[in-house]
């Protein structure tokens, strides 16, 4: 297979071996963890900066504007300038706020999103850790962020923040269900929760194509629920600036606000990459199934020359764009409508969908 040239497995394994052979296992583990941690930190910052810039440009173009264009060519250094500004800003301490929780909350939010990256396969063999319950882990970790949001709202000693936090709590508790169920639909199809296995299983067609209509429905539901889970787009009730000024992060300033801000974009990146991995084959190039015969094989060969990392980033970027498109088009929902959408529409559809998917898998009707 042509894409084996882009296989990182041997590379990562050789690094691993070299470390373990020259050092005691404890220190080898520490060094490995540090390297991975640093790499992710760098990646995290980079993705955050790029996404903030991208969001501003995308929304600007949708709104007949130019967007940032002053700092650097096409304003590409705007986010860096913003970040420096946020670093230098005063950290305002709120009287009568619960200091400990107030300071803790942004870290919980950012750690939750940071932990989720670990399991995401960026290319073959290029992931920090390949759990056999990868999806489960990602869902579990990424929903930890809501604890931070709740704490932020509670400890700010601000009524608006509290309302925002409560909304966010109600929202994430219910949408977690849809995210889980729509991913479950695909797990039924893939037969595994290990992300690398799921990606491998999409070698002859991404799940969104091979899984018939149930997969498409699951994908749409996942996109809606994931947007809701990241507190974005039409579901940004927790911050709803026209209602609650800034919701749970009203009282935050400086770098602590930057953490919330960054975490929002990282969460968006994470949910988009999960969607890309599970529904669109992750780093797997676009492959035609065996049905297409030799022509399909040629096509597959051509596709294989595009590096898997590019595929992965491309798919993720597309999904992020769609989420931005949502955000900059739709009005915000009201809290009861948000819950109605979940419990009256998404959940029943999802449950029926998962049954259909199970039936299809049992009958072997999928491609």
């Amino acid at each position, binding site marked *: 297979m042509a894409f084996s040239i882009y296989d990182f497995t041997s590379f990562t394994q050789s690094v691993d071996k070299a470390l373990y052979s020259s050092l005691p296992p404890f220190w080898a583990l520490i060094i490995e963890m540090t390297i991975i941690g640093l790499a992710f930190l760098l990646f995290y910052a980079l993705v955050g900066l790029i996404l903030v810039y991208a969001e501003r440009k*995308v929304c600007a*173009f*949708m*709104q*007949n*504007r*130019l967007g940032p*264009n002053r700092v650097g060519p096409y304003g590409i250094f705007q986010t860096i300038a913003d970040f420096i500004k946020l670093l230098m800003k005063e950290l305002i301490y709120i009287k009568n706020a619960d200091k400990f929780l107030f300071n803790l909350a942004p870290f919980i939010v950012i750690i939750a999103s940071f932990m989720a990256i670990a399991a995401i396969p960026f290319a073959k063999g290029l992931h920090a850790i390949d759990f056999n319950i990868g999806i489960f882990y990602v869902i579990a970790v990424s929903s930890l962020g809501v604890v931070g949001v709740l704490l932020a709202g509670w400890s700010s000693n601000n009524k608006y923040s509290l309302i925002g936090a409560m909304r966010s709590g109600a929202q994430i508790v219910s949408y977690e269900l849809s995210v889980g169920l729509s991913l479950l639909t695909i797990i039924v199809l893939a037969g595994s929760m290990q992300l690398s296995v799921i990606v491998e299983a999409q070698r002859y067609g991404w799940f969104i194509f091979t899984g018939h209509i149930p997969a498409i429905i699951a994908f749409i539901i996942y996109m809606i629920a994931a947007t809701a889970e990241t507190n974005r787009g039409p579901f940004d009730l927790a911050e709803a600036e026209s209602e609650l000024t800034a919701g749970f992060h009203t009282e935050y300033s400086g770098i602590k606000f930057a953490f919330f801000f960054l975490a929002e974009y990282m969460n968006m990146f994470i949910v988009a990459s999960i969607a890309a991995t599970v529904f669109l084959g992750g780093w797997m190039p676009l492959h035609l199934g065996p049905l297409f015969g030799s022509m399909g094989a040629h096509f597959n060969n051509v596709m294989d020359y595009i590096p898997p990392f590019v595929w992965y980033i491309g798919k993720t970027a597309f999904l992020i764009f769609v989420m931005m*498109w*949502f955000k*900059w*088009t*739709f009005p915000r929902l009201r809290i009861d409508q948000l819950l109605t959408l979940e419990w009256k*529409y998404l959940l029943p*559809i999802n449950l029926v969908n998962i049954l259909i998917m199970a039936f299809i898998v049992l009958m072997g009707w999928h491609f």
Partner: protein
Amino acid sequence: MNSIVKYLTDVFRGVKTLITGMKVTGFYFVHPREIVTQQYPENRKELVMFDRFKGEVIMPHDEENHHSCTGCGICQINCPNGSIEVKSLQVETEDGKKKRIIDKHIYHLSMCTFCGLCVKTCPSNALAFGNEFEHAVYTRSKLTKVLNRPGSTIKKGVQ
């Protein structure tokens, strides 16, 4: 059964309206020509204000440094918020008559509301609106201006 049909049509109709909305924003996203942003400090050269734009009150002077203000003070009376102060002098002309001329026509831009009454009521058309709009200064006192230039005199024939 009916309710299920209604449920499904609701879903599809809702999704359709959402897609219609996304079409509009999508259209503008792929049509950068529709962008209306004006890049302000760069476009200073081609940025032409309309003739009548009320940027500030000015007193037009001709090449020989003549204006047409007689110092009558009608603008001062008509100004609703006291942004104009006219200070005049009594001088003696060659033929021995006493005449009032303008000493200082003081204009407080910071108080002006651009109602246009001074320009409209001036009997000798000595005042006009200028197109200058970049008035930002660091000290407020700079917004108080003397409209007649130093050494300027009244045009001949203006009473």
